[in-house]
């Protein structure tokens, strides 16, 4: 990319003074940037810088911060949000929103628990968890894409309904017996491989997969195109409705995956699992650089946004500040992230 940076905007030898149109064009086209400059311009980069700064400060404030135990816990805690934020990024990229992910976690967790409690083993438990999520995602997606309902309303309704169903089928009881595969399940959610917690592995792998998908897959390209200009995408022959449905299914599936791992870590599940998580996931996604107007997505933004939020929580805790302040800072960072985005956009359009 960098080899083209300076070609324009320079008077070429042998040509007289530039005409107005040429000057005009040289100004508008002198925007190509090198790979490094492109990275520096992205929001995930700046959030990552913020993480490093906070981390640096915390090493001085607290002796505990850099301990293996603390880093292990911190990374595992944000893995669940990071996984869901990957799915939410896709939804937000289409200028949609999915408020149902928190409730869906409850439903998916309870379904997993019930199936495994009945002695079916971990594979049927996982498939049931995924099945329920695909179904909920399909309902959300079809209502939004084909019936043209507002994503906010549809998923808000689903938020209430999914939570209610999880209360009904769990009979409001806690499930802590996961049948014959209990041990394997608890290992999956709570233990680690090569010193890295299993949910973090899942997050790492999924982030890599999404990084590839956003850059190299047709599906990813189409999702970004729909977020940029849905009408143009439709005229170009992209099956906009089907892609929208797939995006909501994806978001639901990542919520199910997070729920599955989270229950394995907790070793128990109640129908309150994931209450309020939708806000944290949306905040992580937006802090990670997603634009609520659509058309912008970064695979790395999801884990980075989730990491910043968990880091704030952890830092407050270690700094001895009341944990009740946590949501205040999450909200504050959310607002700052959106504000920064707006300031940058204003700079672009001027």
């Amino acid at each position, binding site marked *: 990319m960098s080899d083209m940076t300076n070609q324009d905007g320079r008077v070429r030898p042998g040509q007289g003074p530039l005409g107005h149109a040429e000057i005009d064009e040289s100004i508008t*086209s002198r*925007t190509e940037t090198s790979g490094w400059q492109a990275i520096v311009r992205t929001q995930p980069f700046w959030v990552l810088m913020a993480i490093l700064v906070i981390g640096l400060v915390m090493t001085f404030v607290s002796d505990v911060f850099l301990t293996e135990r603390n880093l292990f816990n911190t990374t595992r805690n944000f893995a669940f949000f990071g996984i869901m934020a990957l799915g939410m990024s896709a939804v937000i990229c289409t200028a949609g929103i999915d408020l149902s992910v928190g409730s869906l976690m409850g439903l998916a967790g309870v379904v997993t628990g019930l199936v495994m409690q009945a002695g079916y083993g971990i594979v049927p438990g996982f498939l049931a968890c995924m099945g329920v999520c695909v179904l909920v995602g399909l309902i959300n997606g079809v209502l939004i894409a084909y019936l043209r309902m507002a994503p906010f309303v549809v998923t808000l309704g689903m938020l209430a309904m999914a939570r209610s169903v999880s209360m009904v089928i769990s009979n409001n009881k806690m499930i802590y017996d996961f049948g014959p595969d209990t041990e394997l399940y608890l290992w999956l959610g709570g233990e680690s491989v090569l010193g890295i917690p299993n949910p973090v592995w899942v997050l790492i792998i999924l982030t890599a997969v999404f990084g590839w998908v956003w850059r190299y897959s*047709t599906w990813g*390209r189409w999702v970004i195109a729909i*977020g*940029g200009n849905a009408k*143009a995408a439709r*005229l170009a*022959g992209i099956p906009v409705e089907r892609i929208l449905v797939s995006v909501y299914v994806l978001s639901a599936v990542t919520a199910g995956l997070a729920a599955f791992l989270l229950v394995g870590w907790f070793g128990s599940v109640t129908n309150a699992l994931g209450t309020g998580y939708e806000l944290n996931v949306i905040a992580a996604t937006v802090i990670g650089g997603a634009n609520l107007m659509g058309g912008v997505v970064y695979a790395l933004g999801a884990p980075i946004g989730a990491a910043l939020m968990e880091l704030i929580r952890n830092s407050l805790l270690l700094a001895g500040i009341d944990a009740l302040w946590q949501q205040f800072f999450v909200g504050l960072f959310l607002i700052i992230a959106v504000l920064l985005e707006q300031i940058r956009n204003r700079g672009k359009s001027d």
Partner: protein
Amino acid sequence: MSLLELDDITKSFGAIHALQGVSLSIRPGEALGLMGDNGAGKSTLMRIIAGNFRPTSGAIRIEGREVHFHKPIDARNSGIEIVYQDLGLCDNLSAAANVFLGRELKKSFGPIRYLDYKTMYQRSGEIFAELKSETRPRDLVRQMSGGQRQAVAIARTRLSDPKLVLMDEPTAAISVRQVAEVLTLIRRLKDTGHAVILVSHRMPDVFDVCDRVAVLRRGTKVADKRISETTPEEVTGLITGAIGAA
């Protein structure tokens, strides 16, 4: 034989008759200027040709065969490409990504298929060079001038080598020099045997590149003349209604 033939096309929206018995034909290598005041039915006719609307009655024939367009993709598959006035571009994607939108080139690695950036950049670069446009394949459309955007939209139509290119006000929002570029492109399309329908308000453009001009007024065709047999004054009269029909 006519490339495209519209036969007695009528389109009603409830009680509103947007088009009443419009017939039109165009041959390969011919450029037809489609003119008319706002609300004369130009855009309705355009949307019927593009496959956005289905006519209430009447037939559309391409190379003598009757066709029925249910979706824009049907029209495209029949060899009709449209350059929309708002250009239908995704601002957040690169020029090359827009050119290939919906028909991305892919490479295979075993069972995995992935976007072939290199070929798409190269191919769209060639098209821009052909159009004598300074548009660069990697630039984001968001950062482009009106003329560059136009080049991207026109480059899109070149991919499929269509029989007919329908352009909706292509010169409405660009600089004088870029207008000349677009008109040159239209001539080049004609030279290569493409038919062009130019929907335009700009009299000089139509008289510059078109072979024929058709005028719509209140949903009916009031004139269909060779450019050499008419004058801008007559066409203006036909559009406004000062001249009844010709």
